[in-house]
């Protein structure tokens, strides 16, 4: 997910690095840009438009690329994703299961919801139910707090919130940069402690070897992580963690499961300093989208706060 002002400063580096490993990548923006290319969602930018853009992006993806992929990943323009590890995570599951994965948070929803910045991935069935939910008005635009609203809609539509941890119960989706997870010590009053669905491990075991994502990744760090993950290696080193081969793959060579990533770039809301702060804008890649887009019924304006305070759903991440 991205926005016009982030294309050259952020989205371009996503395009140059990890998004190349997706089967299809769409850069979602409020405006179409044929050169980049981005999909124009016809919204505004900024925090208030966050969920609106996400809703439209997913509708667009299902409509135009529903047959091109089994899984649909939403990420921001400051998210770094190791797509091969996402494939490993999903290898044991099928696109027909109503399930989605990400960094699981616990408050405000019975089964929890997935952090927006760390990225989340929906099965095709989950995506269908999401779109169906809006068609039948079971889901509406309740709040601009995108990740929470997604979680609540999906829960209503019977989509399961999956456990994305590796076989040693280490997290794979990460809402901060590697340095923060590996070396930071979160203060006991930091909101994170109360939000994580699973127990937090600090230090080197915070993170799986087969990490899927990191967030708040600036362009320089994108290339650094690309270098660490895909290039620099210790010759002959036999890694300590030997992940089991997913049984679903059987004995044959693993077949690639098509993966569609909707790379969403976040434009910081005016005045906010942190990139990809609570407000995530969506960047759509608009290849020549000449055909008229049938708008789904415009999401209703947020009424009163439905989930406690709107502002509390996405606390300032700092």
């Amino acid at each position, binding site marked *: 997910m991205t926005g016009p002002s982030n294309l050259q400063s952020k989205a371009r580096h996503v395009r*140059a*690095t990890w998004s190349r490993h997706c089967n299809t990548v769409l850069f979602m923006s409020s405006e179409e840009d044929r050169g980049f290319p981005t999909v124009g969602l016809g919204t505004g930018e900024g925090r208030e438009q966050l969920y609106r853009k996400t809703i439209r992006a997913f509708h667009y993806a299902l409509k135009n690329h529903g047959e091109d992929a089994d899984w649909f990943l939403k990420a921001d323009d400051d998210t770094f994703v*190791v*797509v*091969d*590890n996402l*494939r*490993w995570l999903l290898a044991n599951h099928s696109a027909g299961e109503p399930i989605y994965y990400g960094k699981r948070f616990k408050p405000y929803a019975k089964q929890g919801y997935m952090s927006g910045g760390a990225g989340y991935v929906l099965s095709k069935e989950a995506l269908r139910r999401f779109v169906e939910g809006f068609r039948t008005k079971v889901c509406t635009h309740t709040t601009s707090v995108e990740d929470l609203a997604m979680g609540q809609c999906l829960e209503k539509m019977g989509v399961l919130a999956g456990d994305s941890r590796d076989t040693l119960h280490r997290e794979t989706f990460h809402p901060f940069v*590697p*340095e923060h997870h*590996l*070396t930071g010590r979160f203060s006991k009053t930091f909101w994170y402690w109360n939000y994580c669905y699973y127990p937090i491990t600090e*230090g*080197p*075991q915070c*993170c799986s*070897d*087969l*990490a899927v994502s990191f967030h708040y990744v600036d*362009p*320089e760090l994108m*290339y*650094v*992580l*690309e*270098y*660490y*993950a*895909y*290039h*620099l*290696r*210790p*010759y*002959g*080193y*036999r*890694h*300590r*963690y030997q*992940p089991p081969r997913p049984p679903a793959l059987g004995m044959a060579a*693993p077949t690639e499961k098509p993966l569609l990533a909707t790379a969403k770039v976040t434009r910081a809301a005016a005045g906010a300093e942190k990139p990809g702060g609570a407000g995530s804008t969506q960047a759509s890649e608009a290849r020549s989208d000449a055909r008229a887009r049938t708008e789904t019924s415009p999401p209703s304006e947020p009424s009163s706060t439905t989930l406690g305070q709107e502002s509390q759903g996405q606390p300032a991440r700092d």
Partner: protein
Amino acid sequence: MPSESGSFLKGVILGGVFCLILALLGTFSPEIQFRSDDHHHLHHHLKPLSREELQKLTVAQMSKVTQQVRVYCLIMVTPKILVHWATANETWSKHCDRSAFYSSESAKALEAIDLQEKNEWTRLRKAITHAYDSAGGIRWFFVARPTTFAIIENLKYLVLVKDSSQPFYIGHVQKSGDLEYVEYESGIVLSYEAVRRLVEVFKDESKCPERGHAIWTLSEEKQLATCLRYAGVFAENGEDEKGKELFNKKSVNTLISDSMSQNPSDVVEACCSDMAITFTGMSQSQMQVMMYGVYRLRPYGHNFHDSLTFLPPKDSDND
């Protein structure tokens, strides 16, 4: 007489031309010493064995080579850089077959061999002598400060089938006047034979004085190169098969940042070697991230079919 003066003149002219030719020939020396653009052609480039050559080795040869390519790490510390000392201790130095921290003075927090020596060159000499005496069967030595991060497996790959009973002195080579030396900052590799000769030449106070020259002080890296040169050991620049540097005195972040300015369309490919051995100037957090990035983070399903296997060290949880 005209004919006599004529032949005299001819003689002078011939002689003059002959001298001129000699003078011109004199400038065409086969070793062009001081042209900086030819810098890289002067010293040797040391590369690892290619994949094809490695595959030709038999299993027995392979296992022999694995045994022989063990590394003794000499990490030169001072209490001033305690934090980096601790980080090196917790991270990359665990991958050395043997690692020893040589300090200028003891520090309560961390274990080290206290050389009780403030002079850096003298300290380095003592450390090398100590390492040589306690090497046991180890045949390769790596000298670094703890502000450097080293990937020892890649060091082993570089020297894999090199004969340690030959003198090797490897790292990032720089030139000062006509002295070629390995930069200390990005780490120094020495074979057993190089160290043996060095320890011998340490005894010669005229060639290799213990306190350095009284009149002017050379840096330790240049002192080392000078002493080694007396012993017939010359610096070689470590690079990968594509000619990329293996020993770096900048951090990964700095090198990537430079590459973003210089090669914006191909940042990672144009930056650094896949088999890099050292990076320097990283903060302790960056070194922890590097530990994760090098030894753990990877994309599932990529097999490299390396000819050797190095196992992770015991009792460690960050690699």
